């Protein structure tokens, strides 16, 4: 083909047409990845998110199996309510790692009545996780619905829905949550009424984000193509827009979970969330605070659990965000490390550069 003899006539060199090269690449045996597979791959290679996922899974499994849920019994011998004939062991102090035993009868200790703190913390964790998940679900559904409709149909529909959203936003969240929380506090099936109530107050962020995303997706040509082929608005929203907005939705929902667990703790701490005899982590912190001088573990242990759960959920959210939007990923040089934080990276590079030049050979390649 070529006038000049090419010594290494590889396949690629013989093809001189870009279209041919591209077609050849397509037919060559390459593994095909869908968008979802790529996202999964990125997520599973995100170390903090993976560690958090493992920790959160362990916490969840232990919380639900140890004290059981509903009519299903758990494997932990003590109930979270005061049992008959309970005895104070070790003066209520945690028996974990005491006297050569790993856990002992009451690993997290007992309170004054005496109730087993491990069982209570597990029960509280259950409640917090349920509330987090249900609120994320409820608020996401409402937010997606409002946001997608407002963004897609524009005009009057949008102004009405967005004004409504603004009305909800201007009222402080804690006030709405407290009012709704005290309103539903004596309903049955706790903590579901509270979770749904919180969901009704928390959908605004999701609505605004989804609307913004839909507004930008509206201008995409594949949406225009779908409209031109006569697809119905619902088909376009459900099939084209929401799947492409799923990154924003999932990431926002995961951060909502963390925020809600904290919100519920605050409410319960203020006495407006979960009511006795139910238990929640915030309530345990609130009760423990009263005994902070005599039994500090009553305060610290549920507090630590709140911290662990929210941190894990936040890290998972970070991992999801990086997976969905690799442009924001902080990899290699962009990952904040110890040297970058101390501002030493540039210095080290210049040293290296100088060292390379100092050796003096002119043909010295520098990367």
């Amino acid at each position, binding site marked *: 083909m070529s006038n000049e003899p090419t010594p290494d006539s590889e396949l690629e060199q013989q093809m001189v047409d870009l279209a041919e090269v591209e077609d050849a690449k397509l037919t060559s045996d390459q593994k095909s990845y869908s968008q979802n597979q790529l996202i999964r791959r990125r997520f599973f290679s995100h170390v903090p998110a993976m560690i958090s996922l493992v920790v959160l899974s362990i916490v969840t499994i232990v919380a639900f199996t140890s004290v059981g849920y509903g009519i299903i019994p758990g494997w932990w011998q003590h109930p979270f309510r005061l049992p008959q004939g309970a005895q104070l062991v070790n003066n209520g102090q945690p028996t974990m790692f005491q006297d050569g035993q790993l856990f002992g009868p009451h690993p997290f200790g007992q309170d004054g009545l005496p109730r087993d703190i491990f069982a209570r913390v597990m029960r509280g964790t259950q409640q917090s996780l349920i509330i987090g998940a249900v609120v994320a679900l409820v608020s996401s559904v409402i937010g997606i619905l409002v946001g997608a409709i407002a963004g897609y149909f524009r005009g009057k529909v949008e102004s009405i829905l967005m004004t409504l959203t603004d009305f909800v936003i201007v009222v402080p969240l804690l006030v709405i949550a407290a009012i709704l929380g005290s309103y539903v506090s004596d309903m049955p099936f706790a903590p579901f009424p509270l979770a749904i109530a919180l969901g009704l107050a928390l959908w605004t962020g999701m609505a605004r984000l989804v609307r913004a995303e839909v507004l930008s997706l509206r201008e995409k*040509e594949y949406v*225009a193509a779908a409209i031109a082929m006569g697809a119905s608005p619902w088909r376009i929203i459900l099939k084209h827009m929401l799947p492409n907005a799923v990154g924003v939705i999932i990431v926002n929902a995961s951060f909502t979970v963390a925020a809600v667990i904290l919100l519920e703790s605050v409410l319960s701490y203020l006495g407006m969330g979960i009511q006795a005899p139910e238990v929640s982590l915030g309530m345990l912190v609130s009760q423990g605070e009263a005994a902070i001088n005599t039994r500090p573990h009553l305060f610290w242990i549920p507090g630590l659990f709140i911290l662990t759960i929210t941190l894990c959920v936040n890290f998972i959210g970070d991992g999801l965000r990086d997976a969905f939007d690799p442009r924001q990923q902080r990899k290699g040089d962009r990952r904040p490390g110890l040297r970058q934080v101390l501002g030493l990276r540039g210095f080290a590079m210049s040293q290296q550069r100088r060292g390379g030049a100092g050796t003096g050979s002119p043909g010295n390649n520098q990367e």
Partner: protein
Amino acid sequence: MSQSPVTEDNAATRPRTSSPWIPAALSLVVPGLGQLVVLKERDLGLKLLIAWLVIALGPTLVMTPLRLSGTQVNRAAVTLADTVALSAIGIGLLIAAYAAVMAYRSASPEAQEAVAEAATAKAPEAALSFQDVHVSFATEFSTVEAVKGVSFDVMPGEVVAVVGESGSGKSVTSAAAMGLVPKNGTVTGRIHLNGVEVTAMDAGQLRRLRGSEVSMVFQEPMTALNPVLRVSDQLKEAMEVHGVAFGKDALAKGVELLELVGIPDPARRISEYPHQFSGGQRQRIVIAMAIACNPSMIIADEPTTALDVTVQADILDLLRRLKEEINTAIMLITHNMGVVADMADRVVVMFQGQVVESGTAEEILLSPKHPYTRRLLEAMPKLHQKTVLDGPAVETAAPPEPVTPSDASATAETAIEARDLALAYKHRGKGIRVVEGVNFSVPRGEILGLVGESGSGKSTIAKAVLGLLEVDHGELLIRGRNLPALSRKERKAVRKDIGVVFQDPAASLDPRFPIGDIIAEPMVVHKVGSPKDRKERAAELLDAVKLPRSVTNRYPHELSGGQRQRISIARALSLSPSILIADEPTSALDVSVQARVLEMFIELQEQFEFACLFVTHDLAVVDQLANQIMVLEKGRVVEQGEKHQILREPRRDYTKRLLAAAPVPHPQEQRERREARHQLLAAQGLI
């Protein structure tokens, strides 16, 4: 070693010191002293000295009398004085340490630069020279080598065009010259700019270099200027950063620059914002910023790709004039062989990260040696004009005409018809007419080319036919039925008959759908066939657009732009529509890929016999495809009729200008065309 003038220049401007430790020690004792006395860095030295005096020495001196006169009575005051003085001394020590390090660092690169200069003393005095440059990027899954050993030189006052298609590494090569390769990229090999090695510089040195020695003109004039700053501020910034001129001087120089690049009334317009200028004017401003500091090298990365063809001709005229007036070297990155013929002295052809051929513009364009270059030149769509300038080269290259069933048009049914059509965009409740008084009819099996520059309303007409925009006035008949008067259900039925191909291959396919589903979607929407039939049909269509059937399970991001456009065409044809709307389907594609897609388009058109509205800005593409042409300007029809009449014997001035501005890939012919264009413009009283 010091024969090179470059070395001597540098030696004259930068004082040499026997040891970097001397200024460092001086600065450690009195911050800034080393810079002031030894290094002659007045700015930094003064700043450091003043900072030291004000922050460190001042409070200590002020507090000393208090400390001395303070008695046991006022212990609190004494303690406060101690604290302030001690912390001030601490800060003073920090400033001293900083000054010493800075002094050491700015004194010590001398030795290294001497080595680098020694290495390049032998090198030819190229303005920019690449020696065996490799660039590779670490991606998520593997390392991609974007540039594989590129070597070429750009001499002062010379225009070197780097030509290549996407993925050829031409833009990455230029980014490497500016030190702008993204963080995940690795550059090996050596790049010399005026004899100084760019690859060995740190960020600070590169910053000093950019703008003053080498500057860049980008593709997109809309995003290259900051929309919230006045043009004057942005021009001044370019000069002030490099210390060329300050304040009023800079403003005066900015006005001069704007005049140089041909902005009318520069003294008034310099204080306007970028959005008040047209696209071509914005590109002129970007060029003005690029030449503000008299760089010896301008890198122009596709400077005219985003512009209309007449504006492109003007910008190329400007670049050519500037090259002669200020004698800079220009590295022109482009994919357009016509632009190459118009501008370049030498040409470097790149393909898949390698230089396949380089030589003078005449050599490359008239007698290309490498098969890739030949293919690239063949793929350029050609505009066949009947002009006195027609050289023998064009006549030999005359291709077979696309089949034109011109006699059938009288009998065939009319697919699309517009009668006195007017279209408007709604803006805050008010309608703004963008298209007015448009009449056309396209019979089945014919292609109407809508040609015009940006803002001419050509895409708006396509949108209206697709039902994406309401008709403001007049009638739009789709196979005899007036679209604006139809009910929703009837419209949906009409849409079944219209296929569409959009411009942007990246955005026209839903990234979450596999290819098979994308092609089958129109059938799903209109509930045609069973899932198995749809699959079968999708496979047939993939055959028709010459893609392997295995593509059905892949996703759009795995395909190249040309392949995606072929998928778009397959989707448009899935219901065998009688009408196809193509809105600039090939303008985002590379030339050789565009040739492929157009070839296929013609084939499919013969096979399916659809009527087609083909929107484009490229007259050569229209020449290849269309039966009729309608030329639009600012929403009005300028000229309309048979292709041959419009392209060979244009009647209107606008059409003539449009035709004259399209560059051809032949240096001499292009020179003659350029002169003819200037004559035409002069005759029309436009210059």
